[in-house]
């Protein structure tokens, strides 16, 4: 009888310690991904088009964009731009509570072998695949060839 509260106390302390461990190491947290600001500037031909979007992670765990596919294109690849060098990448990290931004002049998606030349006003559907989270489907609007998100035209 007299031992039971002590056991309880120990259990409570243990629970506290576990919670603390969970705090410093966000292993139980999950990435919570959403996509915004996606667009494709109307390309010059069906050979090649660019795509831009932002992936926001509200979760406490990082994730990784591992591939992009689209029924509209034979191939979609991911590229970074650093100091004038454009490099094809096999994945992009998405930090916990952070963003992965694809924007003109920086990271970009490259669509090749498009079935048709996408025209302004149309939509291109793509699937984003991640290392941890489930895939996301994006309906990317085709904007004018000179569209700039800062001006919205």
């Amino acid at each position, binding site marked *: 009888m007299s031992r039971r509260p002590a056991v309880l106390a120990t259990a409570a302390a243990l629970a506290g*310690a576990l*919670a603390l461990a969970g705090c410093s190491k966000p292993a139980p947290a999950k990435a919570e991904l959403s996509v915004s600001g996606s667009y494709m500037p109307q390309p010059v031909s069906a050979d090649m088009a660019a795509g831009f979007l932002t992936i926001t992670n509200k979760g406490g765990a990082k994730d990784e964009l591992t591939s992009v596919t689209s029924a509209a294109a034979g191939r979609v690849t991911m590229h970074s731009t650093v100091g004038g060098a454009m490099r094809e990448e096999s994945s992009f990290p998405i930090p916990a*509570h952070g963003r992965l931004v694809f924007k003109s002049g920086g990271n970009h998606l490259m669509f090749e072998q498009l079935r048709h030349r996408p025209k302004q006003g149309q939509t291109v559907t793509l699937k984003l695949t991640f290392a941890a989270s489930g895939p996301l489907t994006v309906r990317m609007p085709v904007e004018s060839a000179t569209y700039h998100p800062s001006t919205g035209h």
Partner: protein
Amino acid sequence: MRKKTFAAAALLAAATLTLTACGSQDSGSQSPVSMVSQEAGQRGPATVLDQPWDKPGLVLTDTHGKKYDLRKETQGHPTLLYFGYTHCPDICPTTMSNIAVAAQKSLTPAQRDDLRVVFVTTDPGRDTPAALGSWLKGIDPRFIGLTGDFKTVQAAARSVGISVEPTTKDKNGKLVSVHGTQVVAFSPKTDGGYVLIGEEATVDDYIKDLPKLIEGAKP
């Protein structure tokens, strides 16, 4: 016994507090994220050069398969020179389209005929005169496309401060392309390259600057 229970409660409370602190730290870490997409500089994308560049003495092949002498053909004309390639998804088509749309909106037909927009390919292996021609036709049929020996193109680009490299594959078979993205504007008065325009220039920037560049004036 009572004391022990208290101790346990205190511990739990401490753990809860720590968790709360952890939570607020997380929300705090969101603020730097919003700084990622800052615009570069407020002075505009056009830079007037103290020392104008000489127009490169380029003789290449145009989209009709004919010899094109850059200095001869563009002498006395306002000229915009750009080095790029058609298998470029982002900056090359955007820059050319921005110039095409801005010229349409800000220049008279006579001024548009006077303006020479010259796109020199850095990927002559794929950009044949025909390929270059059909690509430029999709942007503005007035634009001139030039192709030829890569080393010649690279030397010309270098002479106006723009570095271009052949597209290569890294050890994982991934493509790496290096090319400067500035447009060089040459004055119709001096034929000197006196303004550099950065890739961040929007249609609106070109609408503002083209009427001045046409006159050889400072943007």
